[in-house]
């Protein structure tokens, strides 16, 4: 580990292992880290448990920032499956695209994907927020329980299938809606929540444009599948 300046350290994954990186992040000696040459490694910056700033210079594999707590993690590239899975708090930003199951089961924090995201984004979401700058693949927000997902582009088929109390905001088109997911009214509180989320994602210029916000639709649960009956045999 090389100290760049006071409070900042550099870890080169071409030289050091992911184990060494994560051990350092779990018992940090600096406030800010720069990770060089990630080269698609898995579990990069997994299990961060402090308000560290981690900049990853390149693409990462599976489970980057997994179960993040408080960490401010930026990937200057694209991310593989399960980025920020089960995040509890903090902010994870992906400058490029993200693969499937992004933000799966996140309980808190904010995941920002500036590019596109693949299938099952926000699956089983439990309170975390996700902002997608581009498009989202199929089965987004599958079984999402709580939290919010903002999609500035289009959303694929099966959006919000079996959704519980999560909110989805989509500006573009939606392929199809999943079981029990419906389009809902966009009230003042929802509009404010959307604006605030965009602002938190550093999209303040768009957030302040009323016509930009006007382009979004809100989706959520019809709550018709909350109690199982024989009527549901044709619902799934």
């Amino acid at each position, binding site marked *: 580990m090389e100290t760049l300046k006071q409070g900042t350290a550099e870890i080169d994954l071409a030289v050091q292992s992911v184990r060494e990186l994560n051990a350092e992040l779990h018992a940090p000696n600096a406030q800010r880290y720069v990770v060089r040459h990630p080269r698609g490694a*898995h579990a990069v910056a997994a299990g961060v448990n402090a308000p560290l700033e981690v900049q990853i210079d390149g693409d990462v594999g599976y489970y980057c920032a997994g179960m993040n707590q408080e960490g401010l993690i930026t990937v200057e590239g694209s991310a593989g*499956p399960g980025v920020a899975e089960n995040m509890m708090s903090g902010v994870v930003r992906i400058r490029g695209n993200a693969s499937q199951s992004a933000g799966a089961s996140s309980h808190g924090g904010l995941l920002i994907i500036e590019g596109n995201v693949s299938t099952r984004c926000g699956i089983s979401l439990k309170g975390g927020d996700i902002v997608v700058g581009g498009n989202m693949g199929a089965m987004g927000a599958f079984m999402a329980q709580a939290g919010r997902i903002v999609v500035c582009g289009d959303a694929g088929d099966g959006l919000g299938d079996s959704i519980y109390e999560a909110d989805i905001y989509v500006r573009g088109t939606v392929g199809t809606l999943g079981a029990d997911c419906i389009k809902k009214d966009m009230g003042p509180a929802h509009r404010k929540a959307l604006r605030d989320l965009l602002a938190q994602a550093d999209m303040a210029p768009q957030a302040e444009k009323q016509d930009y916000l006007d382009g979004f639709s809100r989706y959520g649960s019809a709550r018709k599948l909350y*109690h199982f009956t*024989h009527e549901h045999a044709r619902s799934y």
Partner: protein
Amino acid sequence: MRSPEDRGLRESATFDRAAIAAIQAAATTGVYDIRGWGAKRRVPHFDDLLFLGSSMSRYPLEGYRERCDSDVVLGDFHGAEPIHVQVPVTIAGMSFGALSAQAKEALGRGASEVGTATTTGDGGMTEEERGHSDKLVYQLLPSRYGMNPDHLRAADALEIVLGQGAKPGGGGMLLGQKLSDRVADMRTLPAGIDQRSACRHPDWTGPDDLTIKIHELREITDWKKPIFVKIGASRPYYDVKLAVAAGADVVVLDGMQGGTAATQEVFIEHVGIPILAALPEAVQALQELGLHRKVQLIASGGIRHGADVAKALAMGADAVSIGTAALIALGDNDPKYAKEYDELGSAAGYYDDFQDGRDPAGITTQDPRLAARLDPVEAGQRLANYLRVLTLEAQTLARACGKSHLLSLEPEDLVSLTVEAAAMSRIPLAGTTWVPGAGTRDSD
């Protein structure tokens, strides 16, 4: 009044009273039956095996004088900090939600008193459970209800649940009457809804992914926690090999007799295979990998007494796990509640409506009035007593086979009573050297 049989009436073997009642219920309600417990049908089981004991060719240990150790180390294969249990019987994963907080506390108390481990369940870790469990295995389930990295780090081992014996391929279920405010809050769900959780994990889809998932969990916990992988018994030969290849330290194998808090009756009775058939497949897989007794194997599903424990170990398990039996030890199906079971349309010894949340014994309920009936201290003591009896019984049988440690039991100590059991267990039929079907797998 004379019984139907006394009057010369003949009951159909195919359409017996249970089958007729099920058809009538389906026709009335339009919904399939959901219940707890495990498979109730008769399947080949450990009852179909016998120990041979010692004679001229085997030398026994003195029953009340010579040691027969029972401790087992679980989870040391990949260098994690293992769990060292003093008896080879752990408590299976059962959720707070399915069980009352008092029941979870009692399980922790009982297990801790005899030096063994208990396991969380679908819905997260409670303070009562962690506080009263010296050794606690934390489950990572498809739903991820209550999953929390702080709890990962607070656990003594992690168990990735791929399935359970009562419902291989099925997800968890908790009906609205048990989704109390506290349970709902832990699971991030609206109170009172019928919770039907996922059967697939949200962020991995196959054995290659699981390898990476296990790597992530090890990274998050700094490689300190053993990783268990639990599978429902269906294709154990392949599943065990894949679980080990993915990095499991321990494989938990749950047969179809394993219990559930709530699952469709049709699922419980018609999916999966008995632990007697599954165990040899799992052992063979480990032996072929050269990892038998290195990656530990925990067998569950229908363990009732020390003979079941000893037979499972003799067949190659390193430990067993109990769920249904543990609940019975706490007080489930206690005859003292016979009148209340009758009022619920059941009977003591038959009660399996764990999904209803009206358990008179205060175990499978979230009703504060009912849950208060279970004294965690007394119930924990009952469980500890039972665990001791299981161990003493297993030791008695092991000494008779000349073994100074329960893990020294071996297949040669056993014979099968039936052709089916011999074929499934690969233990020769008593009085013969015949194992029907031996060598049918390519790798045999």
